[in-house]
């Protein structure tokens, strides 16, 4: 891949083409060795750097994303490589970050902004709901809003109050927002590139407990395959709005997304020891939702459990149950079960293990799927 930088960027000295090429080629040579253990954090960081290399209109900003490289280091090195005009810290004001991104997207940029922690995004809720989601609609498509709101979300890290919310349902409920959540390292790279390439605004929910999860991934190959929107060579290697079969099985379907996918996989592993073959579906994009893949699996297995960390009441998990029930009723051998967080505010660190859906709770739900029939 030979990254190109638009001339407007060169003219302004935002980032020299040579710098970006050097950065890209250094990163590429480091990954030339084929599949290697790579963290989700590294995959996301590489996706940001690659997107910035190929398109000078991609900007990264938020709180602590510059010198510090983000509290989770997802933006590590971007300021050093691309300069303070391409990756910068803002004053501490989330509505300001989102609102400014709206204006920048209106005026030709592709901002990728970080909300630092899930619950920190709430002050920006009005901007997200009233403007990010609606600008395209209000202007009958005359104004596009290509922006990505990155939100580290979910629990399991022992965080204090306001650091562990699962806020995906708020965004999924808002028409006009795409909502992505990767559950593998490769998807972390691919889906973030896809989100940045999208002309629609994307709320990109990053399962924060998976930042340091390692998968064996050939990052170099992923980068080469992705191509770029700027070069007109996007290979469509992101989710394309499709769910994936994370583990094939025949007896029941576990439907999960983001941080619940590894838990579902662990439950399937445990069930296999007891002779039950569970299929695990990774939803990947909550909006748009892939009814086809999910329904196909449930029609095959006849049983389903939906798993999510978020409260179950009025949630993405309720929506999934409703959709599967509408499409698969005559194939179902048992009512669809849900395993979700309880309907309580996210608990303090010493209590979160009682709150979070774990393997045992999933296996109990699977046991309840009327197997005697």
């Amino acid at each position, binding site marked *: 891949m030979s990254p190109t930088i638009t001339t*407007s960027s060169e*003219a*302004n000295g*935002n980032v020299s083409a040579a710098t970006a090429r050097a950065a890209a080629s250094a990163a590429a040579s480091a990954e030339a060795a084929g599949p290697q253990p790579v963290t989700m954090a590294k995959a996301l960081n590489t996706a940001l750097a690659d997107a910035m290399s190929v398109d000078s209109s991609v*900007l990264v900003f938020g709180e602590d994303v510059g010198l510090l490289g983000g509290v989770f280091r997802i933006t590590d090195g971007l300021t050093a490589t691309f300069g303070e*005009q391409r990756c910068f810290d*803002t*004053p501490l*004001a989330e*509505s*300001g970050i*989102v*609102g*400014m*991104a*709206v*204006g*920048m*997207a*209106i*005026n*030709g*940029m592709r*901002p990728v902004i970080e909300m630092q922690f899930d619950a920190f995004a709430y*002050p920006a809720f*009005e*901007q997200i709901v*009233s*403007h990010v989601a*609606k*600008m*395209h*609609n*209000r*202007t*009958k*498509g*005359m*104004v*596009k809003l290509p922006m990505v709101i990155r939100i580290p979300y979910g629990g399991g890290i022992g965080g204090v109050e306001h650091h562990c919310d699962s806020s995906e349902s708020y965004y999924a409920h808002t*028409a*006009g927002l*795409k909502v992505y959540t990767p559950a593998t390292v490769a998807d972390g790279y691919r889906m973030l590139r896809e989100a940045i390439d*999208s*002309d*629609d605004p994307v709320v990109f929910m990053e399962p924060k407990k998976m930042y340091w999860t390692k998968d064996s991934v050939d990052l170099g190959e992923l980068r080469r395959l992705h191509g770029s929107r700027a070069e007109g060579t996007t290979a469509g290697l992101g989710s394309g*709005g499709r769910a994936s079969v994370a583990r094939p099985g025949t007896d029941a379907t576990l439907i999960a997304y983001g941080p619940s996918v590894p838990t579902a996989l662990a439950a399937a592993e445990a069930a296999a020891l007891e002779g039950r073959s569970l299929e695990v579906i990774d939803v990947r994009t909550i*909006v*748009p*939702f*892939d*009814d*086809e893949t999910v329904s196909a699996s449930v029609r095959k297995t006849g049983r389903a459990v939906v798993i999510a960390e978020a409260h179950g009441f009025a949630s993405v998990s309720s929506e999934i149950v409703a959709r599967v029930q509408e499409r698969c009723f005559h194939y179902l051998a048992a009512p669809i079960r849900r395993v979700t967080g309880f309907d309580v505010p996210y608990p303090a660190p010493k209590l979160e293990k009682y709150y979070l859906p774990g393997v045992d709770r999933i296996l109990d739900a699977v046991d309840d799927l009327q197997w005697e029939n």
Partner: protein
Amino acid sequence: MTISADHTAPDTTSPQEAPDTALNEAVKKFGITVEDYMLPARHQIQMVDPDGRLKPEGEQGTQPGHEYPVPGDKELLEAYERLVVGRRVNDQNSALVRQGRMAVYPSSHGQEACQVAAALCLSDGDWMFPTYRDAVAVMTRGVDPVQVMTIFRGDWHGGYDPLEYKVGIQCTPLTTQLLHAVGVAHAAKLRGEDTVVLAMCGDGATSEGDFHEALNFAAVFHLPVIFFVQNNKYAISVPLAHQSVAPSLAHKAVGYGMAGERVDGNDVVALLAVLDRAVKLAREGSGPLLVEANTYRMQAHTNADDDTRYRESAEVAEWRAKDPVNRMRTYLTDRGLLDDDGEARIREHAEAVAAQLREGLSEDVPVDPQELFRHVFERQTPQLKEQSAMLADELARDAAATDSKEAGK
């Protein structure tokens, strides 16, 4: 009074990067202290009094660094024409609401000087971010009047192309558009363009969080944004005294490190003078500015509001005497810039615009139900395709039912 030395002293380790360099440049130009530059003049800037007479320079409210030249004759004549058109548009639209042609119209009757000056101070490449009450400013900026009214006619939430006119969609949530203005300015600055962005809001909006975030962001990033506050004294029913106890809304600027100025919002001469300079300073890189215009909403918030419940008619009458249109007519006539023929020509133009609005808003514009699904995302999701098909089916069945009913007659 001066700002403490600590605050203004350049960072000795990297004086080139001192964040207030641009501000200091502006201060140097006027030969005053940073504080005197940032604080509004002690009195509001007023150049033409309510009786239409040019005030002596010493009584215009100016002070060193805050002196403003009277704008040129051509600009003043154009402003007057726009004022007359704006007043006619306001009154025509209010009438159309009463006739049921529009859902609602938040009139800027009484505030036309602010509306006109906001649009006229900008160059073609500049951007404006208006609120729901700023229809006259949007029209003055060049947007087709009927398109501007689409939002109030009720067939879509916006009616014009923001990118073509460089005018944001009229914003209903209070103050949120100020941040969009900041973003547009920031993007332009990164590309090396000299775009100035004027962002409009009212007095009530200055209490919202986004007001503070927008001012702070614009100041921290040194962006050429003019925050133009039309202080019309009421946020629906809540008077200014319940909104803010600051000496003036313009004083809020200094807290963010930007210059503020207050101006008579019914004096289009003063408004143009102050805004023209604000645009010039912003374009030269002096950073953002806040201009507060003291004006008055002569009519109710909208047709749904009963303003007799919260204000005295004497107060309204007092402001009627300060009318921006009459004032400007007297001033221009006295100066020999406007005669009966000129006045007649301008009235004719205003009537033509009013007729255009009546005609445009009397048409029953057919709405396309499928448009509901067309502009949610770049491409319809499978879910939207399903819903679109469902609606198409419903409509087809309705049409078939109507046809068979007709046939049976």
